[in-house]
């Protein structure tokens, strides 16, 4: 299988879907001439022209609304947020238009729209540019939310998102764009939304994590294996709809769970995951579900503070030990 970067995998997904379906187009700040602030749309303007690769002014609410209106009229837009931090400016359109139009119209207008771009912390970008916003979107009925951790997932899930009949919030990570991995070049390779994946089999503790945190957890799992602690790592991939079955099956096997999350913990995704595990697998649990989350502070600029903001391996290990009572 070809080995390509996460960035290239996204690019390929966009290309393939744009080739397949002329109704698919991409719009956003710097996606055309500049080929993307993070180069995800490299070469698209050249291949598809300015009609289908549209540079926008800095008007997030405006062009997101344009995407939604275009979807109402039958197109299948992909809207790039240069970073997801700026989606807050478009949140009204996302929450009140995209997510609700199908319902409010009694099923007449569905919104096949993808909003994608990098989210979460990167390198010293400070408070306004380092937010994990997935819990906002996850709370909204009518939205689907994806966080793809690998190049393969990036491709397969983005393609499914574009083919989906509903608005999909697709949050990538700047820190993963350069990561390489095997990615099928089959243009019909799709990963269904709503399916978690077990990244690593284990028997003692289930750790649920995605994106950068998932890799950190994998490293921790390697280290703990040497001590004889066997970690199962589950990556939800889609946060809404959440594949609760895969997660619960794992927990029913290991009887212990930790959720690791980069974002601020209070009312974050980890809360939801911990809550449903406890609700549905209480009798299988030998310990409370522990959350390891980003500190409840804005993201600081200074490198050392930035590092301390996101859960360290030590903290993850500590949480695992605490649920494993070792």
């Amino acid at each position, binding site marked *: 299988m070809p080995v390509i970067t996460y960035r290239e995998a996204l690019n390929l997904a966009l290309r393939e879907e744009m080739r397949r379906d002329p109704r698919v*187009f991409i719009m956003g700040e710097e996606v055309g001439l500049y080929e993307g602030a993070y180069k995800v749309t490299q070469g698209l303007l050249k291949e598809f022209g300015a*009609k289908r690769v549209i540079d*926008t*002014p800095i*008007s997030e*609410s*405006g*062009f*997101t*609304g*344009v*995407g*939604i*209106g*275009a*979807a*109402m*009229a*039958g*197109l299948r837009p992909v809207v790039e947020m240069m970073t997801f931090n700026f989606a807050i400016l478009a949140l*009204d*359109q996302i929450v*009140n*238009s995209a997510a609700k*139009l*199908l*319902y*409010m*119209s*009694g*099923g*007449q*207008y*569905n919104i096949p729209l993808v909003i994608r771009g990098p989210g979460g912390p990167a390198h010293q970008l400070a408070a306004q540019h380092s937010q994990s916003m997935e819990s906002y979107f996850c709370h909204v*009925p*009518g939205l*689907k939310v994806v966080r793809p951790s690998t190049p393969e997932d990036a491709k397969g899930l983005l393609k*499914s*998102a574009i*083919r*989906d*009949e*509903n608005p999909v919030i697709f949050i990538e990570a700047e820190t993963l764009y350069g990561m390489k991995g095997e990615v099928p070049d089959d243009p019909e390779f*799709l990963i*269904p*939304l*709503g*399916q978690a994946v077990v990244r690593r089999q284990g028997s003692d503790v289930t750790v649920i994590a995605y994106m950068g945190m998932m890799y950190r957890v994998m490293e921790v799992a390697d280290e703990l294996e040497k001590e004889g602690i066997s970690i199962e790592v589950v990556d939800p991939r889609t946060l*809404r*709809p*959440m594949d*609760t079955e895969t997660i619960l099956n794992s927990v029913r096997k290991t009887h212990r769970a930790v959720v690791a999350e980069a974002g601020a913990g209070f009312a974050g995704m980890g809360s939801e995951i911990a809550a*449903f595990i406890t*609700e549905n697998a209480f009798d299988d649990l030998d310990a409370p579900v522990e959350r390891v989350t980003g500190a409840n502070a804005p993201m600081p600029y200074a490198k050392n503070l930035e590092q301390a903001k996101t859960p360290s391996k030590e903290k993850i290990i500590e949480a695992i030990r605490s649920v494993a009572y070792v």
Partner: protein
Amino acid sequence: MSAENIRAVDAELGQQLLKEMLLIRRFEEKSAEMYALGKIGGFLHLYIGQEAVAVGAISTIGRDDYAIASYRDHGHCLAKGADPKRVMAELFGRRDGLSKGKGGSMHLFDRSVNFMGGHAIVGQHLPLAAGVGFAIKYEGKDQVILCFFGDGAVPEGEFHEAMNLSALWKLPVVYICENNRYAMGTEIHRALSQTDVYKFSAAYGIPGEAVDGMDVLAVRESVARAVERARREKTPALIEARTYRFRGHSMRDPSAAIYRTKEEVEREKQRDPIALFRDRLVKDNLLSEMEWQTIEKEVTEIVEEAVIFADNSPEPPLEWLLTDVYRESGSGVRGSGFADPPEPR
């Protein structure tokens, strides 16, 4: 239709316009009664006084063209050709409503006549209109969209963003600001530093003009010109229709509240667009007293039928609470149409 001879109404067209306006008027008067009876709940915003804007404007476009409005949407939805029975059923929150009872008064949608809603966040539907215009252009069609909004939307950021994007990308959108001088209790000069809304068009380099929104033919003429240009040159326009709402902001607000005087309201009512137009047709010998009575009778019947239909329509079944949250994927992608996560209790 060409903009030039648009003022030359014959009896048929004149009576048609009159009838549409009267239908909206009677439909809403009845809605107000039904609200008082508790058949309609939530917010109910009446369009009474502004009928010439929706009717005049929408008379210039075809069924295949689009219209979109704010929460004060009954007039536009009816003028666009929606079935009054299903509109009333929607206001009643019943199964046969346009939106299956899920939308209500503020969220009327009718895909069969390209009426795109019914949006209750002020300013929010202007970018949506631009998006529809974008799709029209993308697909190389020659449709247009009329986007109706209130003066209260002008201070919102989305007004500005939608104007600029439409002008920049040359989208076939005709923006029609229904300037009734009030956003709830806020008179326009307390909301805008410069109150000639149409003058904003200069900031975007697009055509703009003000028109008497109580004169159905004047509205028709102005909008027809903009529609023609939008079809031909894909140029958006900003039209300010100067009008007035005769009732309160919604059924919860008295018609002459603290923010305006009874005298002002009475004075404005002298400009009643329906009475004005009827008198004009009569004067021009395009409407006889008998024809007028027939129109009144027909309209009354339509409204009565609508009420009976709505009242007979059952409540939506409880399962519908959880339908239409997601559309199942027709693309054969396994899982992409997955149901929502299991409900916690």
